[in-house]
């Protein structure tokens, strides 16, 4: 299957197979007017299967969100059809308004206008906890 290569934009590559839609939603790519291609289950020598997202415009993507989903994802910036930058990701220390706290006893469940903030507690386990109530960030599937 072939998708046209992009001239100016972003290619989010090496997404674990099945994760592209989650990333699409977290990055709010549905708000974009430009063409966005989601390629699922593409063949990969390294990963077997992988997902890819191609965004056909120059824009800033939230690297913290991508790093939270998977720090092994690669973000390639394309200009005039050429790869000009490969962005390296890491697990962000702080996640702001990326995931919501699910604890009904947490102040975020009733107080309007405050951000949902999670702090990285264990990088090895990729464990984040709410800064208000210390509840673990729940995986959203």
């Amino acid at each position, binding site marked *: 299957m072939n998708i046209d290569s992009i001239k100016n934009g972003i290619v989010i590559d090496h997404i674990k197979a099945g994760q592209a839609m989650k990333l699409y939603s977290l990055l709010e790519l549905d708000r974009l007017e430009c063409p966005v291609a989601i390629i699922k289950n593409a063949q990969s020598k390294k990963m077997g299967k992988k997902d890819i997202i191609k965004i056909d415009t120059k824009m800033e993507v939230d690297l913290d969100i991508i790093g939270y989903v998977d720090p092994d994802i690669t973000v390639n910036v394309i200009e005039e059809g050429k790869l000009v930058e490969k962005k390296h990701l890491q697990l962000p220390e702080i996640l702001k308004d990326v995931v919501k706290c699910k604890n009904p*006893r*947490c*102040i*975020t469940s009733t*107080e309007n*206008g405050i951000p949902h903030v999670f702090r990285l507690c264990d990088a090895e386990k990729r464990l984040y906890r*709410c800064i*208000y*109530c*210390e509840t673990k960030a729940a995986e959203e599937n």
Partner: protein
Amino acid sequence: MNKLIDILDLSVPEINELIAKASDIMANPENYREKCRYKKMATLFFEPSTRTRLSFEAAMYDLGGKVLGFSDAQSSSVSKGESVSDTVRTASIYSDIIVMRHPKEGAPLVASYKSEAPVINAGDGGHNHPTQTLTDLFTIQKEKGRLGNLTVGFCGDLKFGRTVHSLISALSRYSGVRFVLISPNELKLPSYIKDGVLVKNKLEFTETKDLESVMESLDVLYMTRVQRERFFNEEDYLRLKDSYILTPEKLKTAKSDMIILHPLPRVNEIHVSIDDDPRACYFEQVRNGKYIRMALILKMLGIE
């Protein structure tokens, strides 16, 4: 210092300094009677409290300061739907220091972001209660003469017992403390404390359901109440509420110098006949609570 939300906001030297100050205030109260003259403390209690609120208010009065606030969310604009942020912002305009209790976890942290005055967490749901922990540490230091090299048993509701969480976190920083966790399965210590504090710091701990089997090993027994207000389901509360009741018979194997602590209020988990036992220190805790809070108020207001 602009906030005390979690006991770990204070370093060990700072805690030791507060304990020394509280001891000095207790010995020489006349030296402190005017220290907070013209200062105002707002007590914002969105949830009922007897000891914590009274001890904070008594502490401020004994320092020569004044107190304003509310002791029930229904008597404030919260009942009209006002947010924590707006309530605190308003209170901080009229006061020099804020003491806040709230049923939602993290509410005092939100308050500290909005307040112009320093904020003290006086209990946020089942989460943290750092000034009770300061009281507990002060009492242990006074009664046992040390905060390290102790075997400390925590009994009852270890899941929702915020005082348990804070005290375990605080004691984890002293060497040679062994933790004995006594609770029914449903009320075990949450993983963020067990894994995040005890396992992570490689501390010695055991878990059991049987209080009597571990009684003789304890230097400190910290009893807790199974709190009705923490349960969404009344049936679960009724099933678990009488899990542990401390009686003179159960104390037979305890050390003669063990101390019994309880953050109070109690319902029936310590039989009243134990109140006269020299090992019962829970009303001493109440007394100590005022002095350690006086020391804390002075520190947070930057008064020597």
